[in-house]
């Protein structure tokens, strides 16, 4: 009944992003650009010790320092929490309490021990050096296995253990499956700790607004709506006094899906002092204090028959929580729990995850959250199984994956994949890659003993995104829903205001959401203004993470738009003096069936709805449509990624020569935005495989605490990616869409490492811990040569 893609055809067009003009020309307000009169600047003093008792604090010199207004320590806010965890994953989980400012004990390098408030940011930072603190070391806990041994120092003494939780999910009977197996392969994979780096560091401004009890808090966050609820719960400030605004946000990747102690402090201090309070982190602060990602030890076992039929898999994880639980710290590893079987059929999956406290920066969601870990495990172990069986790794995958005609398919962990076509994506990817020719080259290089060996890395992945429905999240003990809201308002002048509960931080929602609404209500993309990221202007929302915004939020846009169109139809019919059933709607115009001359536009109807001079009985003035949608299910994008890796066996240096990926994210609203998401995701996933990795010393000091030691690749380090898409529309999502925000980051990591190992497996190497740095690879080759590994 409503407009389809053909009417104006905005959906599916790679139109340029509306938001880019202001972003690329620097004509936007990042949080740190916000300058309010009377602002007080906050600076944080962070613990240089991983674990210690605070025995004495002397703030007198800092208090006397130029420009300093206040210095606060933990004793000033003894009961104020700095964060909260909304996902107590098991009944007997050991929760933790991160204070806004530490009172008597610090638990990681970067823990906040004091704050300075001054008239100027530089003066606040200067005064930090004048605070004198005495520490009595308590013993760092760096290694997860050591942490679980009796006698280890305890991160939280009162808990009596460093064990945070154990979560089990036995699906099928793994021991029975293993008993039938001809081959059992086990490996230990390390999914190293990563430090998410956004272009814009964290920043917050909190200001009492004067005219009411309202305090507005501008913050560089992915979750303004969720944050408002949590800030109210933590501080006791009534929720209806708090307005959270996420202005343009320069990247998040999960690192800004968080409630931070700096936000809590800024809010509480703005209220207490009656002045705006501002804090912006430096990059150095970011490295130790913004939550980290991944950090799992994965013991993986797979059982199969000798013809290559996979029977079952056993997954035993140690997951590093860091020192405290933040918003979804314990749940992050479990977001991968259902996905360890990947795209493959099997009889059993035995999953156990043990969460462990250490004296390190807390971990939490980072692009992919849980699914990169599960994808790495299954795609790596499939290659190892293929090697053990002497099978071509792609053939092994084909033998075990769910065939396209078998969808919808309920996999071993109980999820029902609605759609997928692994054959089509793989065929296209192999063709683009020149798979056979590269295998021939690989053979030739091996035969010639070329110092530079070639490997082919495969990753045929799927993931689950768009967390929903709310009931399922409730069953998983997650303390929030998975719905999303949209209001579409037709203003009297015919312009459209689309109010979304999603909160973009680089994804291009303003453009894509306009494209969807344009097709549904027949108004040009330029006439649609997307309002987001402000609890004052868009009161309902669950924000942006987990590739949910289009998959979930898109449904709300569609329904809200359709409701607007239906209301306008009734008014139009009244104006045209026919019954609503006799009205046709296309491209923004309502016309009488069989008499197209008699027509009116949606803009004209909007004006009628405003004046309300001539509305049908029972129809309320104003024209808008509103919808809050709780989706039927997750969405399951998939794809085939192939990497050609060169390994210089003399130096261990790894080079990514060619990367091909064919993703299936269902219907693409804007293929150019999809392309951008894929490229960025690939860079991050490849970075995990080749460059990134947080390193701590035994005392709990972060050794990779700057961009000089923590390596991020730039465009100069990456080849031009060859990408394409197959389109298998989702049947559980009304627009046919799936998520694409994390796919690249999830799929690419195992493709790279499989490729590296494929290049040097003949030398005896069957595992490389990430990142595959030259020294790591060279040592693996040396060890294999001397009979190790």
């Amino acid at each position, binding site marked *: 009944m409503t407009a389809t893609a053909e009417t104006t055809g905005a959906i599916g067009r790679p139109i340029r992003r509306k938001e880019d003009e202001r972003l690329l020309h620097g004509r936007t307000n990042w949080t740190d650009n916000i300058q309010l009169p009377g602002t007080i600047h906050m600076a944080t003093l962070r613990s240089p010790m991983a674990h210690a008792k605070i025995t004495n604090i002397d703030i007198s010199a800092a208090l006397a320092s130029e420009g300093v207004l206040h210095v606060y320590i933990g004793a000033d806010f003894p009961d104020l929490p700095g964060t909260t965890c909304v996902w107590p994953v098991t009944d007997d989980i050991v929760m933790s309490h991160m204070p806004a400012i530490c009172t008597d004990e610090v638990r990681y390098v970067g823990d906040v021990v004091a704050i300075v408030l001054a008239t100027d940011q530089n003066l606040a930072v200067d005064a930090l050096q004048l605070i004198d603190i005495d520490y009595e070391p308590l013993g760092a806990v760096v290694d997860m296995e050591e942490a679980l041994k009796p006698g280890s120092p305890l991160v939280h003494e009162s808990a009596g253990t460093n064990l945070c939780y154990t979560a089990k999910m036995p699906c099928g009977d793994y021991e029975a499956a293993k008993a039938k197996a001809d081959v059992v392969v086990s490996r230990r994979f390390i999914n190293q700790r990563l430090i998410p780096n956004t272009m814009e560091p964290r920043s917050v401004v909190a200001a009492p607004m004067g005219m009411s009890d309202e305090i507005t808090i501008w913050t560089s966050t992915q979750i303004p709506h969720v944050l408002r609820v949590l800030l109210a719960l933590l501080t006791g400030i009534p929720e209806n006094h708090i307005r959270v605004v996420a202005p343009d946000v320069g990247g998040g990747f999960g690192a800004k899906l968080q409630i931070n102690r700096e936000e809590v402090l800024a809010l509480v201090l703005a209220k207490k002092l009656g002045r705006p309070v501002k804090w912006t982190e430096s990059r150095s602060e970011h490295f130790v204090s913004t939550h980290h990602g991944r950090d799992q030890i994965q013991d993986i076992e797979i059982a199969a028959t000798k013809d290559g039929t996979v029977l079952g898999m056993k997954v035993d994880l140690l997951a590093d929580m860091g020192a405290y639980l933040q918003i979804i710290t314990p749940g992050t590893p479990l977001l991968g729990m259902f996905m360890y079987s990947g795209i493959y059929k099997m009889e059993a999956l035995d999953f156990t995850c043990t969460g462990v406290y250490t004296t390190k920066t807390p971990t939490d969601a980072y692009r992919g959250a849980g699914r990169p870990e599960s994808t790495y495990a299954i795609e790596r172990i499939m290659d190892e199984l293929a090697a053990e069986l002497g099978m071509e790794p792609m053939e092994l995958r084909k033998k075990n994956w769910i065939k396209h005609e078998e969808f919808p398919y309920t996999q071993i962990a109980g999820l029902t994949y609605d759609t997928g076509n692994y054959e089509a994506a793989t065929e296209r990817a192999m063709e683009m890659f020149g798979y056979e020719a590269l295998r021939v080259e690989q053979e030739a290089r091996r035969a010639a003993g070329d110092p530079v060996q070639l490997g082919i890395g495969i990753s045929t992945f799927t993931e689950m995104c768009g967390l929903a429905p709310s009931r399922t999240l409730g069953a998983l003990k997650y303390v929030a829903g998975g719905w999303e809201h949209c209001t579409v308002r037709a203003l009297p002048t015919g312009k459209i205001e689309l109010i979304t509960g999603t909160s973009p931080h680089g994804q291009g929602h303003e453009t894509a959401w306009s494209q969807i609404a344009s097709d549904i209500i027949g108004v040009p993309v330029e006439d649609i203004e997307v309002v987001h990221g402000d609890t004052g202007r868009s009161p309902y929302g669950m924000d942006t993470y987990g590739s949910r915004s289009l998959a979930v939020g898109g449904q709300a846009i569609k329904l809200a738009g359709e409701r607007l169109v239906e209301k306008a139809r009734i008014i139009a019919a009244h104006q045209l003096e026919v019954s609503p059933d006799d009205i046709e709607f296309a491209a923004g115009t309502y016309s009488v069936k069989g008499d197209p001359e008699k027509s009116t536009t949606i803009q004209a109807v909007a004006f009628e709805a405003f004046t309300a001079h001539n509305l049908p009985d029972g129809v309320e003035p104003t024209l808008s449509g509103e919808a809050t949608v709780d989706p039927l299910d997750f969405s399951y994008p998939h794809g085939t990624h192939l990497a050609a890796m060169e390994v210089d066996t003399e130096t261990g240096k790894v080079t990514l020569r060619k990367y091909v990926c064919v993703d299936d994210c269902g219907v693409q609203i804007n293929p150019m935005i999809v392309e951008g998401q894929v490229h960025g995701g690939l860079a991050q996933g490849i970075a995990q495989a080749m460059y990134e990795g947080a390193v701590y010393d035994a005392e709990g000091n972060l050794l990779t605490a700057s961009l000089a030691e923590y390596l991020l690749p730039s465009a100069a380090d990456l080849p031009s990616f060859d990408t394409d898409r197959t389109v298998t529309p989702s049947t559980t999502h009304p627009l046919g869409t799936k998520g694409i925000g994390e796919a690249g980051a999830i799929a690419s990591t195992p493709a790279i490492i499989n490729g590296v190992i494929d290049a040097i497996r003949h030398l005896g190497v069957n595992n490389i811990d990430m990142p595959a*740095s030259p020294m790591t690879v060279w040592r693996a080759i040396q060890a294999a040569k001397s009979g190790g590994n």
Partner: protein
Amino acid sequence: MIPASFDYVKASTVDEAVAALVKGGEDAKVLGGGQSLLPVLRLRLNAPSVLIDVSEVGEMRALTDDGDALLIGASVTTYEVMHSELVKEHAGLLSLTAGAVADPAIRHKGTFGGSVAHADPAGDLPTVAAALDCEMVIAGPNGRRTVAAKDFFVDYFTTALAADEVLVAVRVPKLGAGWSYNYQKFNRTAQAWAIVGVAAAVKSENGTITEARVALTNMGATPIRATGVEAALAGASSSDAIAAAASKAADGTSPTSDLHADSEYRKHLAAVLTRRAVEAASGI
């Protein structure tokens, strides 16, 4: 992070710069392109009371032909060194290596003199200064002096420059006919410092190396001349001979261990990269 506050003086002549240094005492620092000094200040590893900016001192911005050498002002940027026709013609190793330094933005700000004065053992240009037997022209309160590269680099981030001295220029001897060169830089990302680097210049006649200069980056506290390799290369005319000579590259060195490479791996790399640099330079 935010540096501690400091005073700023912009010098327009070498004398002005020296005078300001003398006045500023121990706490004064020369500011070139700031690409090494500013990060140090931001990390609060150092907090000088005054910075004396020499980036626009005319004499120090000049790059001239000085007969058997080039005279390159300390404030000539890495980008300018990379693209100078004079440097390409007479000291190709230097322009090639300048292109391996950091990324374009940093090359536009950072200076040749700043890199040499900073004396980071991982810096690429000090290695070339060592390989080409450059001389440093230094000005201080007692006038000017010249120090040879081998005496200039003293230790990690330490040179023969006194606190009240300015590096004015670097004299780069011309290589002359028959020489060819190569720089092998081994790093993990494109704009990162060298884990190990090798600069090689060889003079060959009829397919035989007659003379060689080999210098190593990040194999010790200062740039190191691989004299054993240089000696062994004289007369080399086969890849086996080059490989045999290159295997001595790490002799007598004790490179550091860090996150990217331990000492043993650095020594291994030095040999591999020396072989590659000499092969590439000599075409053998």
